[in-house]
């Protein structure tokens, strides 16, 4: 076999696979006629195949199918829901979006515990209370977070109080007065503001 052309071994397998070309087959046959070793090799391969193919059919146990059916997972409804969700990923995405958005807005509401007020000239701040002194006029909007506002003078604009109280005796406010204390109102305020910003942005662009 050592002295034989190297491709002869490959041709044998091509032959056994049934995809040998005519030229290769002719070459192989010619070689096998002249070479005892290769002829024996080929014969051994043939009997090897015959040997494996003589394996008897092993019959499947009688209760095989029953056992498979018993092992199948129960609860088709669960599978149904899963499949439905898998086919409609947009609902999962929308739900995730809502959860994340509301979470971020609500944490925003809870985290802002610090007192803050819109900077305006002639506003007086005493502790957590903002005072518009009597006789003074504040021009522009005022936003107070986590504090109260007392208006004794006049305000030419809107007042928004978040987590606080609006107190006035003889107030003179030209704009709107908003008090926001609940999470829901906070959300509504955010949405309104977002809308307003978009509108003003559009207005500017016009």
């Amino acid at each position, binding site marked *: 076999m050592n002295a034989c052309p190297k491709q002869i071994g490959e041709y044998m397998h091509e032959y056994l696979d049934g995809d040998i070309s005519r030229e290769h087959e002719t070459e192989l046959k010619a070689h096998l006629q002249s070479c005892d070793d290769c002829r024996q090799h080929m014969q051994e391969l043939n009997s*090897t195949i015959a040997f*494996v193919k003589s394996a008897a059919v092993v019959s499947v146990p009688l209760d095989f199918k029953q056992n498979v059916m018993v092992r199948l997972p129960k609860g088709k409804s669960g599978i149904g829901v899963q499949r439905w969700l898998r086919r409609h990923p947009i609902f999962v995405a929308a739900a995730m979006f809502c959860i994340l958005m509301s979470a971020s807005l609500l944490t925003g509401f809870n985290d802002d515990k610090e007192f803050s007020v819109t900077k305006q000239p002639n506003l007086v701040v005493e502790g957590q209370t903002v005072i518009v002194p009597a006789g003074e006029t504040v021009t522009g909007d005022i936003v107070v977070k986590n504090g109260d506002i007392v208006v004794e003078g006049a305000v030419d604009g809107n007042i928004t109080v978040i987590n606080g109280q609006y107190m006035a005796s003889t107030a003179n406010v030209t704009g709107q007065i908003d008090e926001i204390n609940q999470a829901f109102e906070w959300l509504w305020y955010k949405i309104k503001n977002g809308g307003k910003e978009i509108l003003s942005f559009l207005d500017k662009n016009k």
Partner: protein
Amino acid sequence: MDALINKRIKQVLKGDQNAYSDVVSHYQQKLYQVCYRMLGNKHESEDIAQEAFVRAYINLHTFDLNRKFSTWLYRIATNLCIDRIRKKKPDYYLDAQVAGTDGLDMYSQISSSDRLPEEEVQRMELQERIQYEISQLPDKYRTVIVLKYIEELPLQEISEILDMPLGTVKTRIHRGREALRKQLGNL
């Protein structure tokens, strides 16, 4: 036949679990046979073949109805068999073999590196010997030889089942044949 199987698969997908029993009936013999020749142990092959049907059921929604179901099923089963062979501990089913009804199981448990003494091999009956020689093959050759010569599947289908190029399948079959030939010596 494939049309009927596809019809049953669609019924299963709609939630009719009982329709799956026809699918099992149709393929159980072939699948069990492959597992048995791969593993050489009746208990294990029954377990793995059943597991293959269960996995196919669970993942049925991923099956492409335009393809051949048997190819997909064979792939699940051969993968499970190969996993099992690689994980197998030598004493895994020791009790089962002792109580076993035939001698086949005993030989299959001996890891492929320890070949039995030649006179013992010579004394085996033909069927016993066939299973023994198959079990002696390295698992990558064993799979292709079983699919090719026991299941008599076309090379193209074997390449799809094992998800490897046709050329690789051919090479493995060639080497598997040569390995078996050497094992058998002059039969």
